[in-house]
Every structure is written in structure tokens, then in C-alpha cells.
């Protein structure tokens, strides 16, 4: 018993909580939420008032206008073509960009620094922004879409793959260098083979994203099924919109299933 009483005197006080941090974080989150809710007119009442209209829309959107389907086949194919081109060109261009951005492989700090920031800036702009820019530069159509997806692909793959490259085992690359191999030889025989499965996996992943993105590029005039979607949407042909959305979803799901099953086998 005396043992327990001795111990009682050593009971530590509960350390004070970091109230500044807790209140600061909670305050920030509440403030942002309040500001956002006000800014976007977040109101349940508005939603409730509009619901009848919404029901009418949903009723009108169903069933889809199946007779429209034959006219979708061409644009759907074009969509896939855009995705393939964007993935292939982007996938190739991503290789040097990823290598130069990998800390352990880059030939110099300045190259690394410039490349890294270039990569980050590419990542800031969403796919549709690139599509709008290229549509303005080369005119409306699938070429603008393919170029937009090229940039988007570079952004996705280079970021992910440069991280894989940084995680490789440097023993072999260093051995190649020690044996008098050039920087390129070091990459080709020492570094890249190790991270090749990752490269393939990320490229497939980018392809999935591209198929998804290519469906909506047409909303800003960059080719593919999205252009049909845009015309039907702006004339409120919702049965046709529903048909387009459904076919897009099915196509995306099919591509994703195939791509995922390949990726699972790779890594």
C-alpha cells in the first residue's frame, strides 16, 4: 500500500493542450466554411424551391433517346483517338522531364530546379484549361484536345515517376558510372530498368485519366464526344444528354477495367 502512495506523488500533471493551435485551426475551418457558404449562396431553401423543376428535368431525361446512338459512334471513337495520342506523346515527353526532376539522377541542381518548377506549374492548370488554350491556338477540333492531353499526361506521369526514380536502388547506376559509363548509359542500364514497371503502370493510369478527360474536352471545343454533349446540352435535349453520359460512363468503365487488370499484374 505504501508503494502506491509513494507513486501517487509522482503522478504527472496532464500537459496543457495547445489551445492556440486547436482554436486557430477550428477558427480557420469555421471561417472558411462560413465565407464559402455565403459566397456560393449555399441554401437548402433554394434547393427545396428548385426541386420541382429538378424533378421535371429528371423525368424528361429518362428514358435516354436511343435513336441518337448511331450518331455517337464516330465522336466516341474520336475521343479514344485523342486519348491515345495524348498518352503516347505525353508518355514519351514525360521521360526526360521525370529523369531531370529526380534528385538522384539529375545532372545538376539548376536543371533540377527549373525542371521541378516547370513540372509543378504544368500540374496547377486543369485539363480543360489546356484544352481551351490549345483550341485558341490551333483552332477547334481534336488536335487541340490531343495537345491538351499531352500536357496533362506529362504532368501526371512525370510527377509520379520521378518519385519512383528517386526510390530506386542506386548500387547498379553507380557501378555503371564507376565502370566509366556515361550519364546516358547509367540511365539506360542502371536506373530506368528498375523503374520501368512503374513507368508502364503510371502511363496506363494516365491513359485512364485521359479517356475520362477526353470525354469532356469537347465542352470547350477540343473534339470528341464532348462537342456533341455541348450542343445537346445547350439546346436542353436532356434525353440525348443522358444517352451521351451513359455511353461515356460505360466506355470509361470498360477502359478502366482493362487498364487496371494490366496494372495489377505489373506491380
Amino acid at each position, binding site marked *: 500500500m505504501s508503494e502506491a502512495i509513494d507513486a501517487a506523488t509522482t503522478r504527472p500533471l496532464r500537459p496543457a493542450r495547445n489551445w492556440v493551435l486547436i482554436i486557430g485551426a477550428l477558427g480557420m*475551418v469555421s471561417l*472558411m*466554411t462560413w*465565407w*464559402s*457558404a455565403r*459566397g*456560393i*449562396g449555399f441554401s437548402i431553401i*433554394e*434547393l427545396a424551391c428548385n426541386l420541382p*423543376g429538378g424533378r421535371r*428535368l*429528371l423525368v424528361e*431525361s429518362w428514358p435516354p433517346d436511343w435513336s441518337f446512338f448511331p450518331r455517337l459512334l464516330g465522336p466516341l471513337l*474520336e475521343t*479514344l*483517338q*485523342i486519348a*491515345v*495520342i495524348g498518352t*503516347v506523346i505525353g508518355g514519351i515527353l514525360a521521360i526526360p522531364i521525370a529523369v531531370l526532376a529526380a534528385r538522384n539522377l539529375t545532372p545538376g541542381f539548376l536543371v533540377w530546379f527549373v525542371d521541378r518548377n516547370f513540372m509543378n*506549374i504544368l500540374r*496547377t*492548370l*486543369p485539363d*480543360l*484549361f489546356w484544352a*481551351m*488554350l490549345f483550341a*485558341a*491556338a*490551333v483552332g477547334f*477540333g*481534336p*488536335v487541340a484536345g*490531343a*495537345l491538351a492531353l499531352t500536357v496533362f499526361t506529362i504532368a501526371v506521369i512525370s510527377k509520379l515517376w520521378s518519385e519512383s526514380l528517386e526510390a530506386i536502388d542506386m548500387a547498379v547506376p553507380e557501378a555503371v558510372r564507376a565502370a566509366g559509363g556515361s550519364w546516358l548509359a547509367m540511365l539506360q542500364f542502371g536506373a530506368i*530498368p*528498375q523503374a*520501368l*514497371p512503374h513507368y508502364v503502370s503510371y502511363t496506363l493510369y494516365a491513359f485512364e485519366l485521359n479517356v*475520362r478527360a477526353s*470525354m*469532356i474536352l469537347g*465542352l*470547350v471545343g477540343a*473534339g470528341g464526344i464532348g462537342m456533341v*454533349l455541348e450542343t445537346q*446540352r445547350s439546346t*436542353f435535349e*436532356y434525353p440525348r*444528354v443522358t444517352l451521351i*453520359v451513359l455511353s*461515356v*460512363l460505360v466506355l*470509361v*468503365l470498360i477502359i478502366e477495367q482493362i487498364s487496371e487488370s494490366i496494372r495489377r*499484374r*505489373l506491380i
Partner: protein
Amino acid sequence: MTARSTLPPAAGMGWATQVTLFIAVLFLVCAWAIDLTPAALANLPRQMVTVLSFFYPADMEYGATRVWPALLESIQIAWMGTIVAAMLSLPLALLGARTLFPRIARLVKLISATARAFPEILLAIYFVPIVGLGAFAGALAIGISSVGMLTKLGSEVVESIDMGPVEAVQAAGGSRLLALRYAVVPQVMPEIVAHWLFRFELNIRASAVLGVVGAGGVGGVLLNTLRYRHFEKAAAVLLLTILVVLIIDMVSGGTRRRLLR
């Protein structure tokens, strides 16, 4: 390395060569189909330089008066969508964990997969006529598609935890709810909040494009400036967007790294 070992060795031409050839042919067919000729590609850099020269100087007055408010609205859309999605996805992530609720989990996974399948912008196409043009439609679209993604990622985090403490709470006479409270939630919370932040970073980009279909934010501004070929104004949109996204990525990414440490 692993790639090689899992695929059967091909006689004669290696499988890698075959795949590369196949992709090359596929690429050429696609390029031919959309009229992407070598000449057009060669012409591209010159074209880009010409167009880019129109972007200078950026019209920063337009930036301050029109672009900045639209960007703020994009941030508000992304924030609200993320907050609502986070709140909804937390219970769903628990219910969607096979290890905790084997039966309900299948249903939850199905629902979240459906929500995930729709890109935000397709959802927005439906919400705009329902709730009217503007930011609210955007926030709803972002919220719903984020719920799908956050539920999936959250369930994966829950499924990866150590189930020992869960049983320990129950062995002490605690209910399932208390087991969630003291054994599951503390284990998963940092990862789940990190996913929220990451989703917020993605949602900033997503909300920026929603304006294209009239769901508020900066996308509509860019579309209009480019449509009327006001390139100096478009330059202001791009500059400000890049700046804001970079800053948010930095703050959010830093917070995530601290959480997971």
C-alpha cells in the same frame, strides 16, 4: 523486373518489342484519323509562339476586377464541396470497411463507386438546370463526386488498420460504437484528414473548370476571354489561377506532411 517475370517469354521478337510496335501503329492510325500530320506538328511551335505573344502583357486590371472574384468563388466551391463530402464520407468510410461491417460494406462500396464514376462536370450538367446557374450547382457536383472518392479511400484506410485494439475495447465490455471511437477513429484520422486535404487540392482544379457549363467560378471567365480572343485578359486568368493553386497546394501539402509524420 517484375513485369518481365509475370509475362511469358515470347519466341523470336520479345514481347516488349511487340507491344511497342503495336502502340506505334495504333498511334499512327489515331494521328491519321484526326488529321494530326507531321506538317501540322512541325508548324505547332511557331503557332504557339505567335499565340503566346498575344498573351503579353497580362491585363491585370481585368485580373483584379473580374478574375479575382471568380477565383475566390472557385475556392468557395471547392471548400464547400470538400467540407460536405468530408462530413458525409466519414461515417460512410467506416460502414464501407469490409473488416468492420462485412454486409453493409458491399452496398456502401457500390454506392461510392457509382458516385465516383461521374466526372464533376457531367454532374454539374444536371445540377445547373435543377438548382440554377451558379456556384451552388458546382459545389453539389464537387461534393457528390468527392464523397465517392473519399469514401473509397477512407474505407481502404480503415481496412488497413490493426484490428487488435477493436477487439480489446469489446473485450472490456465496450459496444461496437465505442470500439470505433477508441480503436478505429484514432488510428485512421490523420490519414483520412490528409485525404480530405488532398481532395481539396484536386477540387480547386475541378471547380476552376466548372464555369464552362455555367456552374460558377473562374472557368467561365477563361472561356469567354478566349472566345472573344481577349488574350491579355486570358493571361490574367492563367497567371492568377497558377498563383492561387500553387499557394493552396503548398499550404495543404505542408499540412498533410505534418499530419502523417
